[in-house]
């Protein structure tokens, strides 16, 4: 088999994985059976496709093949368990379609993966594994934990789902807002880990930001009337639009210094449309506010053109929804642009964020602008100690070195 042949099969498999697993879980009621059948279908595809070519409906082919493999296996093992018997009875040959009940399968599984009964780390890992189709080694690498640790984390979560009977179901309307919040948090965490990687490896992990956006798109397709879902997707694409311009020569480039020609304008246009779409629903929320703030930034042709009073006004609205010190820190940065660095610094100094690298970096920048060089140097040092991200350390080191 040629390398390209194999790569093509694996790419299709990965694209179809979430759909495939979700429909198998619905049919067989068991994640392990679904995963095993899916990987057997991959083996078959790797044997057949390079010769026969990728079938016209690869997703349908994989679903049928994996379904047959699962039934074969259950027959072989002659499982008498009622659940498996029921799966036999449930055998249907519904054609694979990209919309309709199949999409609902993925939504169901997403809510299972993000169930509040699972540990937060497990939710993120399980979502990437089952819906993103990332392998255990890939997820382990992305979160900088040993493969065995990640493997155990995922296995434990799957066992809990099976033993405690975490349902495969979209929550009822009454529980939806709260449960949806958990799903959005998972997608946001996946994106963040990609956008400002915490470890000492690559400063940006595009596979994680890309995966978060892909899953957010699916969620938005499935729940188009939930403004926070739209808001999250908008925020993610508007942030992703700046990804390429955000790191240059291994150094972080702050928003104000970024080459705006290097932004992805298709993403920005999409993000702006999404912001308008969610704000029109008039049920404001945290992600919608963050998206709107990003929209103001990406709307300005140059940093100097930024409508800072609008940014501050949006942060004021966000503060009413989320009074966290991190929001207050970001608001203070905008206030500094509007009312000067000393006003901003007074706000920043009040915040209990001594362990947070961005707090030190913000203080350093404001102190630098106020000409308080000695204090600025100390703050740059503290910021460099508090982060592991190589691009950020490089940027902070340069700024510190420029101080005389």
């Amino acid at each position, binding site marked *: 088999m040629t390398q390209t042949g194999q790569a093509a099969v694996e790419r299709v498999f990965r694209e179809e994985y979430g759909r495939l697993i979700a429909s198998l879980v619905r049919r067989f009621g068991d994640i392990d059976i679904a995963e095993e059948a899916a990987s057997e279908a991959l083996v078959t595809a790797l044997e057949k496709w390079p010769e026969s070519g990728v079938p016209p409906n690869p997703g349908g082919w994989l679903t049928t093949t994996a379904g047959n493999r699962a039934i074969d296996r259950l027959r072989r093992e002659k499982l008498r368990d009622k659940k498996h018997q029921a799966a036999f009875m449930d055998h249907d040959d519904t054609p694979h379609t990209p919309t309709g009940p199949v999409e609902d399968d993925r939504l169901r599984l997403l809510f299972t993966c993000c*169930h509040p*009964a699972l540990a937060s780390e497990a939710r993120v890992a399980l979502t990437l594994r089952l819906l993103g189709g990332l392998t255990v080694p890939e997820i382990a690498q992305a979160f900088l934990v040993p493969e065995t640790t990640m493997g155990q984390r995922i296995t434990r979560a799957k066992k809990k789902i099976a*033993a*405690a*009977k*975490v*349902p495969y*179901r979209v*929550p009822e309307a009454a*529980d939806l807002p709260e449960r949806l919040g958990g799903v959005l948090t998972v997608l946001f965490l996946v994106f963040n880990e990609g956008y400002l990687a915490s470890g000492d490896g690559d400063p940006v992990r595009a596979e994680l930001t890309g995966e978060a956006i892909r899953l957010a798109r699916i969620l938005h397709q499935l729940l188009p009337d939930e403004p926070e879902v739209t808001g999250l997707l908008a925020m993610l694409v508007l942030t992703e639009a700046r990804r390429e311009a955000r790191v240059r020569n291994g150094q972080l480039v702050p928003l104000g210094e970024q080459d705006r020609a290097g932004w992805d304008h298709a993403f920005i246009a999409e993000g702006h449309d999404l912001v308008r779409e969610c704000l029109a629903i008039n049920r404001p929320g945290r992600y919608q506010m963050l998206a709107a703030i990003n929209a103001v930034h990406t709307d300005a042709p140059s940093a100097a053109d930024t409508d800072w009073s609008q940014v501050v006004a949006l942060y004021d609205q966000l503060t009413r929804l989320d009074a966290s010190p991190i929001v207050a820190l970001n608001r203070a940065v905008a206030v500094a642009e509007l009312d000067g660095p000393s006003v901003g610094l007074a706000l920043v100094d009040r915040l209990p964020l001594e362990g947070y690298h961005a707090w030190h970096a913000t203080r350093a920048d404001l102190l630098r602008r106020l000409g308080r060089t000695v204090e600025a140097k100390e703050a740059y040092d503290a910021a460099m100690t508090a982060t592991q991200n190589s691009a950020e350390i490089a940027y902070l080191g340069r700024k510190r070195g420029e101080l005389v």
Partner: protein
Amino acid sequence: MTAYLMSVHGPAEMEEFGNYGSREAMEESFAETGRFNDKLKADGYWVFAGGLQPASTATVVDGQGETPVVTDGPYLETKELIGGFWVIEAPDLDVALKLAAEASKACRGKVEVRPFDGLA
């Protein structure tokens, strides 16, 4: 249906009115728990439930050796211990968690939900 143990956890050291603060508060909680139990029975979730004597009345028996070894006190020396429990049958964890939230409110304590591997 899956069977779940809903166990109530609270401080090992009991005060005069349990952990309720006053006789009235204690009686109110008992009444509320009673109503919750009636509801479990009426809705078909009920299997079994009971409150336990303080952990200081517990004895640990290790019968794995030739002669059983009996030790005074609870198995785990912790500040928080199981004070009572329900065994329920529910279709899935979401239903069990909803019932546990009601149970927790009624008995004024945190409730752990854990599935049974099976009921004998």
